[in-house]
């Protein structure tokens, strides 16, 4: 994926005879262990150590020391490119040929943040065309979308250009291949927040949720957009979101994301403060059950106890909550048995009358 840039012609200070000798011996060596992607002769790939235009630069081998550990089996090409990268770095060379080499170094290891940093230094020092750089980085990201450095580089270029106009579409394209790519979402949030591009984002989120109602990243983005625009403080917005969540729950009752979202938006105001909520959820219970529904009820009852809602009988509420915890622990959500039993003990301790329940310190025996 390397882009080929024009290489600056440099004066050759090495004598022709020496150079020829070196080139021949290197090429013979190269041919012996030639790999498919590294043709030596006939207009194919040439190692930097054999390029005339680079003869002035002494390659710098990696300083692993006499007894290296965690040695990597570098290919010949890798060693060659990085020996020259190190040389450029050492001389702090700011040239077109250096810029071109960074692309090759990146192609070999896109996670090398030192190379990326150097490339950025060169982009500025050489006043390179940042539009071209956008094309370059777009291609790299398409190829390696789960890499930190590529996204950070894109962000820097967008910042320098102060132009986010391609971003939302580009990110949408990446998300169309992997709708949960964490770096993509991070970049998207940065773009939207920095350049105030909130318009249309809620619609985009809804599109994604139409495609996959279980996409937790999309649910998170929904929360992000609303938090930073209308906020959840207006009753109309909250009602709309509650109804939206319940609608999605009805479509897919075992979708944890929708339940978490419902709880997440109601908890700040208190679950038991929302009128008619318990009835709506109990109504759902007639059609299906799920550990998420039961867990939601526990949360609801806990909030009732917390706010000391005088409409309800505290003891009765506590008992209902405890029953649900035990049902979850024993039968409906056994993987979380330890957790639900802790919740029960906590509730009892906080809202129960009399003694604090002691946790079981049972010794578990395995053969």
């Amino acid at each position: 994926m390397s882009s080929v840039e024009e290489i600056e012609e440099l004066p050759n200070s090495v004598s022709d005879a020496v150079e020829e000798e070196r080139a021949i011996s290197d090429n013979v060596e190269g041919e012996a262990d030639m790999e498919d992607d590294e043709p030596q002769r006939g207009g194919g790939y040439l190692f930097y150590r054999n390029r005339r235009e680079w003869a002035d630069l002494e390659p710098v081998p990696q300083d692993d020391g006499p007894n290296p550990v965690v040695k990597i089996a570098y290919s010949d090409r890798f060693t060659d490119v990085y020996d020259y990268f190190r040389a450029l770095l050492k001389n702090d060379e700011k040239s077109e040929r250096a810029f071109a080499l960074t692309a090759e170094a990146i192609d070999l290891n896109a996670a090398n943040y030192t190379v990326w940093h150097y490339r950025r230094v060169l982009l500025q020092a050489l006043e390179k065309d940042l539009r071209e750089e956008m094309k370059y980085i777009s291609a790299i990201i398409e190829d390696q979308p789960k890499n930190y450095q590529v996204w950070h580089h894109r962000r820097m270029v967008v910042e320098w250009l102060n132009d986010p106009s391609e971003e939302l579409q580009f990110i949408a394209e990446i998300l169309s291949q992997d709708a949960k790519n964490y770096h993509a979402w991070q970049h998207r949030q940065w773009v939207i927040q920095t350049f105030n591009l909130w318009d249309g984002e809620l619609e985009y989120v809804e599109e994604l949720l139409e495609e996959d109602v279980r996409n937790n990243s999309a649910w998170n983005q929904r929360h992000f957009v609303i938090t930073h625009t209308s906020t959840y403080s207006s009753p109309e917005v909250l009602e709309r979101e509650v109804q939206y969540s319940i609608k999605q729950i009805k479509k897919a009752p075992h979708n944890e994301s929708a339940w978490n979202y419902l709880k997440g938006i109601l908890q700040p105001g208190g679950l038991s403060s929302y009128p008619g909520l318990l009835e709506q959820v109990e109504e759902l219970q007639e059609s299906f059950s799920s550990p998420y529904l039961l867990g939601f009820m526990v949360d609801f009852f806990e909030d009732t106890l917390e706010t000391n809602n005088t409409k309800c009988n505290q003891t009765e509420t506590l008992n209902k909550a405890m029953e649900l915890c035990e049902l979850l622990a024993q039968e409906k959500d056994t993987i979380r048995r330890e957790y639900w039993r802790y919740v029960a003990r906590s509730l009892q301790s906080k809202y129960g009358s009399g003694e604090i329940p002691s946790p079981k310190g049972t010794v578990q025996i395995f053969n």
Partner: protein
Amino acid sequence: HTHGLWEETGEPGGNLHRHRENMQIPHRKDPGRVPGNQTQALLCCECLDASRPWLCYWILHSLELLEEAVPAAVVSDVCQFLARCQSPTGGFAGGPGQHAHLAPTYAAVNALCILGTEEAYNVINREKLLDFLYSVKQPDGSFVMHVGGEVDVRSAYCAASVASLTNIITPTLFEGTHNWILSCQNWEGGLGGMPGLEAHGGYTFCGTAALVILGKEHMLDLKALLRWVTSRQMRFEGGFQGRCNKLVDGCYSFWQAGLLPLLHRALFKDGDVTLSLSSWMFEQQALQEYILLCCQNPAGGLLDKPGKSRDFYHTCYCLSGLSVAQHFGNQDLHHELVLGKEENRLAPTHPVYNICPEKVAQAIQHFHQLPIPAQKGATACAEDQS
């Protein structure tokens, strides 16, 4: 995949000896041989060329969990290699000659603490390390991963980890950091990489562990975090997912399950008397089953899930998670639950640093004998803004 393991051993696991063999760092066998030919190159890819201290840490930590001794010659070799990864301006880089970065800095310091010799401790240039930390500190309390690099909550953990182990915490170093980390806790109860992002196991671990180091873990909504992380254990697989509605992955055996010891301790400190005295708040047996039955490569090494290939990262974190699942408590109150043969037992790991607790104590003891370096880094950086 799992049938073979059951039949072969009669019970889960029993292949840990293969991991021990596999983890052996190749070392000098014949001093008479030509230098340079002695150590065989690791069969790992060029893509890790900027992560070599990580390789040291993943391998050393795996060996210490397996209670496999590291030969003295290798100890010294690793020290010398990591010394070459140290940047002249402070901190450690992904390899010799590269720029310093908080992630390999974290890995290098952890690796050196596992080695635990005077030579290892002396590799770290504490004064320069402090300079480096100041150089990546941001006004809002966060840290960039490297100069000119990206911000996310990993950096706060890496910084807090190395600074606390090497005793270089100054009054201003973590100013604002805990508030920034707290702002990463979201509507789901977990933490994202940055404020606004989706809750994610890796970032949640980093943020929580960093807050524990800073003594500010009680400022989190611990109940919400507890609900989030316990919900990440998969009811069928037994392992953990990194985010809601995503797939299980062996490495989350540590990043996610490792949160339960942290939360247990935090709640305990908060005065909670209803905590269990024998178990973490996740299904320890189910996690052990997932790791032993689904995450082992028969030739050694561990992995994400069946069908994936082994790597040192997954080996480290699957083993770390297995250790968490086997050991409840601390030195005073300790309760073990080892699934399968006794030889499946791993050494305990420290839930904050993820190196063995003895190594943490030893390092802290060593570095606390030294004075905290002067804060010249802080003012120097402000002036050097050219």
